[in-house]
């Protein structure tokens, strides 16, 4: 009951934040509010026993998305023009649909109902069979990487596509060279003592945490995607403090491109290896003599592929935005 009430409170906050985002004319405030929105959402997910999703939403929604929006805002005007005309029809239709959906909700199973059809059919099978078939503690990772590995392959390619798109449109990869790198102005906050020291202390821990998330995803919440996002957060912090030039010297764009493509290829190669070794596409059981060992190898390798691609793509995207004048 208490959880429910806390949940209701957080949800109300969510709605208020959403309204505030829509109403804010200052886009910087709107970006900050949307970061808060994502954090609130992540809290909600946590309350709803979805640890993996909460972690991802926090890393992606509050972290990466905010950084990207800020990077985008740096290149576009910071305030929204007002004075649009609003017809009565739009709000009316939208309110009607919302009411309709609320009306429909009365036919839905209520929150947490263990008898709901969604809890019956496929889900119990995963919970029951995972120890026996895949044998890793985190069932979410098992479903993500093995049972529905094809979806996750697709997910990696969605990320790669976004990277290709941003690099195609804004330069990066082998496309347009990063124009800003030629100048010497870019030194970040390296003249300011406190951020510099803080960052020097923090960055190694962030990167270490990312590696933990990467390789511990089978046991606790996390996996390649979250790890990639956190790793990228660390690097971005580094580049804020030490300047982008140094960052790019450490990890040049070509390496990022190879990481992005290589991760996706690694994932695909595991799939093809399944075929080559007599199983189906993305069948990990055939990768080793013992099916369970095979599953473990498969999951570790594809998670690595996911991590590589996500890191490569997100950093490329960040650099592409940052390098644009």
């Amino acid at each position, binding site marked *: 009951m208490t959880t429910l009430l806390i949940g209701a409170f957080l949800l109300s906050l969510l709605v208020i934040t959403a309204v505030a985002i829509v109403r804010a004319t200052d886009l910087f405030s709107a970006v900050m509010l949307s970061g808060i929105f994502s954090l609130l959402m992540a809290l909600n997910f946590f309350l709803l026993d979805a640890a993996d999703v909460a972690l991802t939403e926090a890393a992606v929604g509050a972290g990466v998305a905010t950084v990207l929006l800020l990077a985008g805002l740096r290149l576009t005007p910071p305030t929204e023009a007002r004075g649009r005309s609003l017809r009565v029809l739009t709000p009316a239709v939208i309110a009607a649909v919302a009411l309709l959906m609320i009306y429909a909700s009365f036919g839905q199973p209520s929150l947490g109902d263990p008898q709901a059809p969604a809890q019956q059919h496929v889900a119990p099978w995963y919970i029951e069979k995972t120890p026996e078939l895949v044998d890793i503690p985190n069932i979410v990772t098992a479903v993500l990487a093995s049972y529905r590995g094809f979806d996750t392959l697709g997910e990696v390619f969605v990320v790669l596509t976004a990277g290709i798109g941003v690099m195609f449109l804004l330069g990066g*990869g082998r496309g347009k060279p990063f124009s800003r790198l030629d100048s010497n102005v870019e030194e970040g906050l390296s003249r300011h003592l406190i951020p510099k020291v803080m960052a020097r202390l923090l960055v190694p821990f962030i990167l270490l945490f990312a590696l933990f998330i990467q390789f511990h995803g089978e046991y606790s919440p996390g996996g390649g995607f979250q790890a990639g996002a956190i790793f990228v957060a660390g690097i971005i912090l580094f580049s804020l403090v030490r300047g982008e030039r140094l960052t790019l010297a450490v990890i040049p764009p070509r390496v990022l491109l190879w990481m992005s493509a290589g991760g996706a290829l690694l994932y695909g190669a595991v799939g093809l290896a*399944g075929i080559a070794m007599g199983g189906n596409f993305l069948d990990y059981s055939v990768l080793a003599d013992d099916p369970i060992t095979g599953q473990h190898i498969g999951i570790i390798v594809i998670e690595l592929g996911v991590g590589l691609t996500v890191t490569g793509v997100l950093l490329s995207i960040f650099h592409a935005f940052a390098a644009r004048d």
Partner: protein
Amino acid sequence: MNLADHLPALQVAVPLLTAPLVILLRAGFLAWLTALVASLASLGLAILLTVAVLETGTQEYYVGGWEPPYGIALSVDGLSALVLLLITGASSLALAGGRQSLRLDIDNRRAPMFYGAWLIAMAGLCGIAVTGDAFNVFVFMEISSLATYILIAAGRDRRALSAVFKYLIIGTIGATFYLIGVGFIYMMTGTLNFADMALRLDDVIETRPVIIAAGFITIGLALKAAIFPLHIWLPRAYTYAPNAVTVFIAACSTKVAIYVLLRFNFTVFHGNLLGHSDLFSVFIIPLALSGILLASAIAIYQGNVKKMLAFSSVAQIGYIALAAGLASQAGLMAALLHMFNHALAKGTLFLCVLAFILTSRSAIITDLHGIGRRMPWTMAAFVLAGLSLIGVPGTAGFISKWYLIVAVMEVPGWGVPLVMAIIASSLMAVVYLWKFIEAAYYGEPPPGGDTAALEVTLPLRALIWVAALSNVYFGLFPQLPLALAQSGTGTLLGGLN
């Protein structure tokens, strides 16, 4: 290891996994060549799959070795095979014919990214066609959409960017609506597999969430399929995309959305929701009819030949939607056939337009005056494909229009008005096509225009003619699309019997 057993997975994997290799290449030409080879390989796979489907029926494949509903199952029937042929054929045609045109649109350094996106778009569309899992459809839909946005944004006109932004917003809304619908169905059935869903929905028919789900899925996919009046993204996206991209997406991308629409509405809802087919008809037929008539009328007033053909596409999508909305055996046959035949005709038409623009550097009809005299071969192919679009006998377009008219004649009371609407729209197609053809043959070239330009290179001309003649071939010997459509209709209506 027998690769023939893995065709459904390879159909997606081959283009998808070639894409990362392509983006690592340095030279535009190599990237193009690799993409073309991968595309042709996919076409080969699609042909092999089609043969397999026609010989042994639906091809099932369990990704990862997990059987459905726990894992993701791929399932290829006649309808999927038809769509696969369209996707891979259109992509190969556009890549093969679009080399020169794309070299003008995209500079060499960015070309590897572009061709990578192209392959991902194609793989995504193939993925939608082969999968038997509702959420997997969403993933591939997003892959293909994101990649398609990139392809369209590569257009040289700055309006390509504003067009693609609108497409991105509407496309995401459509996909999200679809996801909501899938969520509601999952909520009531606990499964994501199409076949399993159809079985388990039986227990929960007529509950509010399922009806809401049908609404969300239908509207979301109608957005993606550009069914009138949800088509607002389409004309500008088609017009300002690079010409070769228009050839590709005009031939197949909306068809794939319609494919999912049919799959959901017929295999999942049709047998389970009482009166669903009536509701579906009541929703879709008026929209389809207004699309058929209004979009054709708008097409007449376009000054840009690409935009004209884009509005014509909206009208043709209306035909497909109308035929599907009849929810009858004959109607579905007509819809599936028209998907195939319209892709043939539109692909050829846009390929001809690509050739015109290659020589005259403009898509504005007044700039293209007299182009038919300078490019007689390409123009003749345009006329041929135009006839197929109108539905003249002997061309592929006639076959589907014939089925469509026979199907609407079965509708009690409404047969004659519907036939009249179809005929009126066909006549409007004559008008807008003829407006261009007449200007191309007899118009005075614009003063100062480049009148020295002559025909495009022989290989491109040959390709255009292969495409044009396929319109005639499938008009005289439509056994292949008929067999696939028949098999597809069988699986779609299987839920009824």
